[in-house]
């Protein structure tokens, strides 16, 4: 790594960004071809800021992408990054002429569209107003004013007349909310869309719905719900209908990983492997399919190993990046739990060979798993083994019966006491509020020998 790259990634690290040193398995050009629209730039910039090997290439591609659009803010952002990472590149200097002309054009266009919209409003033609709003919103979105775009898109709503329009408004709003990472709003818009869409364009709309729903759940760390949404994505949907948010490969990765993190073996078999519609997606990412099969077949260490091999790829995904450590940890602890099910006692050495990472012994992990309650077992560090704790229903029953009886007794006494207090008119009354009763103060009764 040369000095400027080092400085760049140190800065990124200080900002709390994720840094991926391994080379990912995908090819940047092929990868970005899968997408359309504004997500291309977002993804490129994320890779540029996170991946050490791909940094300069991705940033350069991002600058090119930004220049093709009319979003000057993005252009500045990408160039700023590249200026630190690779100052010697020709793209690293601002194209002042382009910036000025684009900004001037943007201003003029905003002005023109606003004026047009005003005209439509005066004419009171609903369809024109709707289109005027849509044009303005699209323009704002392309210049990067997402708040303004969201506002204009939602202004389309009063003037919609056909189901297609309703679906369009919904799509626009969901897309903008996704870009703003506002997961709650994504869900809100989706529920409005889900209740109104009809047979028209069924395939494409439903796939878009499911994927954005899944992303929204993923953003809120609801892994099981997210997995179910991805698994239900319609395989017949044309790629173009949703590739402005995710590619079919992404659907397969998101669905597969999240299912692994949240389902047990039986559910994985029925909902993922035996699911004919998801199969189409799964075939695009054979290693995910392999990992799931390995998990279902009980070859947990192989499953973990094949997932680890692709960790770098997933860390460079715009939606997954933040959640990968949690997802991987979930899968790992699930593997350990599943591994232990058939045993009542396992030696720590065996576990270490099955799951151990050389740098850190498994004991620490088991410790936190048991404390978090995910693993029902106890460690014996003297004889070096792990015993699983079997539930003893008889003991539980006895304990709960004794507790119930005791509680009943105490409650009865307390009720009697309260009735007596009420009868003796000794309840604390409101009018003597605070201070009136403050007789026992620390001056009067100093603490005696507690210590």
């Amino acid at each position, binding site marked *: 790594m040369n000095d400027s790259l080092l400085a760049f990634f140190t800065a990124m690290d200080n900002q709390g960004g994720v840094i991926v040193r391994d080379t990912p398995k995908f090819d940047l050009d092929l990868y970005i071809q899968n997408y359309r629209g504004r997500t291309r730039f977002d993804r490129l910039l994320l890779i540029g800021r996170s991946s050490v090997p791909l940094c300069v290439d991705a940033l350069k591609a991002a600058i090119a992408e930004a220049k093709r659009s009319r979003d000057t803010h993005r252009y500045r952002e990408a160039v700023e990054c590249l200026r630190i990472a690779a100052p010697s590149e020709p793209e690293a200097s601002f194209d002042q002429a382009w910036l000025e002309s684009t900004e001037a054009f943007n201003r003029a266009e905003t002005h023109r569209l606003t004026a047009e919209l005003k005209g439509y409003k005066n004419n009171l033609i609903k369809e024109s107003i709707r289109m005027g709003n849509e044009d303005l919103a699209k323009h704002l979105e392309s210049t990067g004013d997402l708040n303004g775009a969201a506002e204009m898109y939602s202004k389309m709503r009063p003037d919609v007349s056909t189901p297609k329009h309703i679906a369009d408004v919904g799509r626009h709003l969901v897309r903008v909310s996704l870009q703003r990472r506002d997961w709650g709003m994504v869900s809100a818009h989706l529920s409005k869309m889900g209740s109104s869409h009809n047979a028209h364009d069924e395939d494409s709309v439903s796939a878009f719905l499911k994927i954005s729903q899944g992303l929204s759940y993923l953003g809120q760390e609801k892994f099981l719900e997210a997995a179910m949404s991805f698994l239900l994505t319609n395989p017949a949907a044309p790629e173009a209908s949703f590739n402005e948010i995710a590619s079919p490969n992404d659907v397969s990765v998101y669905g597969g990983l999240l299912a692994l993190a949240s389902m047990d073996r039986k559910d994985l078999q029925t909902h993922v492997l035996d699911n004919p519609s998801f199969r189409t997606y799964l075939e695009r990412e054979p290693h995910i399919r392999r990992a799931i099969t390995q998990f279902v077949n009980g070859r947990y260490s192989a499953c973990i190993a094949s997932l680890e091999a692709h960790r770098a790829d997933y860390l460079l995904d715009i939606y997954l990046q933040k959640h990968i450590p949690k997802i991987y940890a979930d899968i790992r602890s699930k593997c350990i739990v599943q591994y232990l099910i058939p045993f009542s006692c396992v030696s720590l050495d065996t576990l270490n060979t099955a799951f151990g990472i050389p740098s850190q012994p498994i004991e620490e992990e088991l410790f936190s798993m*048991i404390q978090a309650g995910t693993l029902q077992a106890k460690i014996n560090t003297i004889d070096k083994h792990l015993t699983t704790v079997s539930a003893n229903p008889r003991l539980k029953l006895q304990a709960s019966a004794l507790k119930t009886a005791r509680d009943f007794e105490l409650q009865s006494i307390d009720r*009697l006491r309260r009735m007596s207090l009420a009868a003796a008119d000794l*309840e*604390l*009354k409101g009018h003597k509020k605070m201070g*009136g*009763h403050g*007789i026992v103060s*620390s001056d009067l009764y100093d*603490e005696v020998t507690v210590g």
Partner: protein
Amino acid sequence: MDHIVSVLLSFPPGNELSNAQYDKAAQAHIKKIDKLVEENVPAFAAAAPQCLELVSPEINSLSYLALLRIVLADEKTTEAQRVGVLPKLVTFLFTFDPRQIRYAGNILSAILRAIANRELLPDSVAVDSLATAILRINPAGSMLTSHHISLVQLAYESNCIDASIPVLEKTVVFYPGMKGAGEKPFPSDMTLTPPAYITVDSGLTTKLSTTDVLQYDLLCGLCFMAKRMWQQAFDALERVITYPTKDTACSKIMVEAHNKWILVGLLLYGKTPSLPAITSPGPQKMFATLGKPYASIGKAFESLTPDTLKAEYDTFLGQNFFAEEANRALIDLVMMHYQRWQIINLRDVYTKISLEEIRARTQSAETCAQLKTEKEIETLVQAMIDEGMLNGVIEKSEDGSKPAYLTFLSLTEELSEYEFGEKMLATAQRIKELAPIVKATSERLATSREYIRHLVKEQKREKDGGSRDIAVAFESSIEDEDLMTGIMAGH
């Protein structure tokens, strides 16, 4: 003199008396003594010390008490005589006849009050005799009296708590001044429930205020804390916290109790206790605001490292907060217990763990660091085992092939069907023993003026309501008919 003695010895008569007869005889005897005293006070007072030798405190309790009063109250009694009488007073308080004493509540109470004011006896004897006297009046200790309150104050202030524990441990369910006690029974009836004979009229207690009751339970809590009886202290404080209130009222005593309750809860359970559901909403709000420092201490206590706890502690210590709240000693104990609870919590994860690992995994909250040597951990763990906090054993191998380690023993042993049955039966028995109290309470409630008024009103309404319902039903059926005919006609 002889006349005096013969009068004094005339009660109780040798033969068995019914409750009514006993009542009459006792009243008459008191009158007789009063008359004797009135006729010739100096003579009676002069004869009193000698009479005390002749009259038995156990059998002739009423007479004995009258004599004691005269001796203690008479101005001519010399200091030496007074001191000489005191052992007799103590004997009396330990042995008096509980049936007779019900007729001399005022005199007894006056003497008990004087004792509680530290006028007569040294503190330790005073606490002991007060406690014994209270339990002789009401062996179940189920009724709170003004003497309870003076006892607990005296015990706490003089730090002679041990002797008062038997009284403080009793479950209190009755309070003086309860309304709805029906007709006046004979106090001589030994089957009476305490509220029937311990009344303000009988002089065995005075009327209590809300503050008295709250203060009693708070002081009970403090006494138990001083004796390190954490469970009892916790329960006592909880009684203060859940005290019934009206109109969102909250007392300062309750807030104080709540703060101590959190700290005791930490010692006892290793985590912040949750407020009982019956806590009134007013105090709940007050606790949330005024108990904030304690809540944050509690939260820090539950965290896995002692850093936050130590930081919180130091901040508050800097402001002299705990000293002002009189919780300094308690909070120091909480700090000391942090590591202990860390060790106890290891129980959920390990069956056996070496002492060295315990050392590495736990930190002291006082220093925010691990203990330095394995030896220190061993002492700590051994102390916990000895105090019964931890169920486990420290094992060391003879040849040194293995490190010394701690084995956690199971907390709850599975009981055999027989043992389990026994335990359940014992609880059932204790609940059955509540039956008389329940009966007394429900009788009292059923005969109270409010309830009867309510009952009459209810019955009246039922009568009225029934007839009105029929009328409504009738009317509506007519209306229906009308409608139908209308429609029919329309066709």
